[in-house]
């Protein structure tokens, strides 16, 4: 498993890939900080500079600069909006919607994925369903969800769809990626079906499952904010973004986007499981 976006640059406690060292050597150690921290700081600085520059060149309130967004952020966090909701209430609304859909998705997807990875005919049976349903963006189901489920189940359904597939598919591939050698080793040590499943398949697939859970949560988060914007209602960050857009508070829209981004990052990082190391 490689470091991917959204995953800390140096979380593994392992040596960084060799090709990085050359570049890292070029970065001076500033204030005794590790060079990666310096690069991240520089990247952040460049981001804000580019943002500020673009905002200044365009000079259009539809793209507010960092300073305006900063003060809108303070406003969002300290004052209720014109509907009377505080930011905390918006966040809780969105989060509580996610919890149900995501937990439900994980509760179905993990056992089903384990079973499908273990029982070949089941995988073949499910494949057409999964292959056909998966490419449909969860948001395409919104009209259906609103009519057939209604608030708040519509949101739960959308989150379920968004997080189900990454969890299911990663669990499935996790089971299939367990090294046959480890299964052989376990069998020569006297392991039978149940023991093999709980002690080899399950922990062997764990890395993939946790990746699936992390991806699923990311998708859930994206889908709930978009679903709230597109019509699933009742208070939430998507509602905040949408109403602020409607009244032309683009500084607040960007402040909301910052909050959505930061929370999404914290959420996916929050799910940290121990990582399975690759076998020799």
């Amino acid at each position, binding site marked *: 498993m490689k470091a991917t976006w959204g995953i800390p640059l140096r979380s593994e406690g392992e040596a960084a890939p060799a090709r990085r060292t050359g570049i890292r050597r070029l970065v001076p150690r500033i204030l005794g900080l590790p060079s990666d921290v310096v690069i991240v700081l520089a990247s952040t600085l460049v981001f804000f500079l580019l943002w500020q520059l673009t905002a200044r060149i365009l000079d259009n*309130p539809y793209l507010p600069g960092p300073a305006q967004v900063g003060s809108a952020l303070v406003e969002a966090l300290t004052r209720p909006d*014109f509907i009377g909701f505080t930011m905390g209430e918006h966040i809780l609304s969105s989060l509580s919607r996610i919890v149900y859909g995501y937990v439900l998705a994980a509760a179905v997807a993990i056992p089903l994925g384990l079973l499908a990875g273990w029982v070949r005919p089941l995988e073949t049976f499910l494949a057409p369903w999964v292959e056909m349903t998966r490419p449909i963006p969860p948001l395409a189901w919104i009209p259906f969800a609103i009519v057939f489920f209604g608030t708040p189940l519509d949101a739960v359904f959308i989150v379920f769809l968004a997080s189900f597939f990454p969890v299911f598919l990663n669990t499935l591939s996790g089971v299939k990626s367990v090294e046959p050698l480890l299964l052989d080793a376990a069998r020569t040590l006297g392991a039978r079906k149940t023991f093999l499943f709980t002690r080899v398949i399950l922990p062997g697939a764990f890395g993939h499952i946790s990746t699936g859970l992390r991806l699923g949560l990311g998708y859930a988060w994206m889908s709930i904010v978009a679903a709230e914007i597109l019509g699933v*209602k009742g208070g939430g960050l998507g509602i905040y973004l949408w109403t602020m857009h409607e*009244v*032309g508070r683009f500084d607040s829209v960007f402040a909301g986007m910052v909050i959505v981004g930061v929370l999404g990052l914290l959420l996916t990082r929050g799910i940290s499981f121990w990582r399975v190391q690759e076998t020799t």
Partner: protein
Amino acid sequence: MTRGRLRPSLEFVLVLLLIAACAPAPAASPEPVTVRVGYLLADLHHIPYVVAQDAQAGGGTSFFEQYGVIVQDAGGAPYPNGGVEMDHFAAGDVDVGLLGAPPAITKHLNAAVNTRIIAQVNALGSALVVGPGIETPQDLLGKTVAVPGHAAIQFFLLLTFAQEKGLDIGEITVVDMPPPDMRVKLESGEIAGFVAWEPWAADAVIGGAGTVLATSADIWPDHLDCVVAVDQTFASSQPDTVRRFLQAHVAATQWIQDALSQPGSDNYNHLLELSAEFTQRPTEVVEAAFANITFRSALDAEFGDSIRSYAVKLIEFGLIPPEKLTERGYSSVEDFADAYIDPSFLEGLATP
């Protein structure tokens, strides 16, 4: 179809150009300039725009033709609410637009959309319609109420209503949707009520889907509703075109006022036909709806008061932070109203 009628085909434009070229030109009209007009979806308040395009209403040639104006629906028009129309102003899609005063004020102050108000369209003309089970304002708590948009006057009226009745707006779920969708959602129970422009309030009442809990006259007597706004860049480069557009608008408004004062007349019936086609509602619905709307185009002293009141209330409701006034270069609400209302075009009108 309404859209077909409002979007002149190429042939129609060519014929128009031919007529314009052959007919004795009214006033001193040089090359006719096409005006891209923004307006709202099936909003009866915007019937002057339809009337001004109608040959019969103009007595053979439409008011726009008479004043040498070629109109064209702006990109994306008709819009689901005034906030969206302001976005299209910002995008440069709209030259002149009809929309509610609150979105015109809100998005000018919040997002610096470069518009000015140059005429009035109508007063009143919205209502809070509720479904079965809602009898008092308090019954709305915990329920869902639809409005066309959060920058729209209908949301403003709902906020005002809630304030007057001592309701916490946070306990009412406000959703937005185009008014033509609202009756169905009310009937299905998905929403408990809605605030919409006419004829959608009258439509739901006549169709038996709901009853009026408050008309806009109940909430704010004789309140200003829609205005004509102009893109400031267009206004400064084409002042004569703007003036001619307003001439047609004033003429159409006058024609509507006259028609409505003579029920049963040919013009009255023709107005109902035009309105029914524009909104896709039966004539009895639009006839009932007209009773709730006052059409007037003038920018009088009360108009300025209304704009100031809107600005004050929008700031009070939190839709516009007070610092946005200074950010846009206005020292006060009075200063803003003076600058944002531009009566110069209406004052300079010539007769056809």
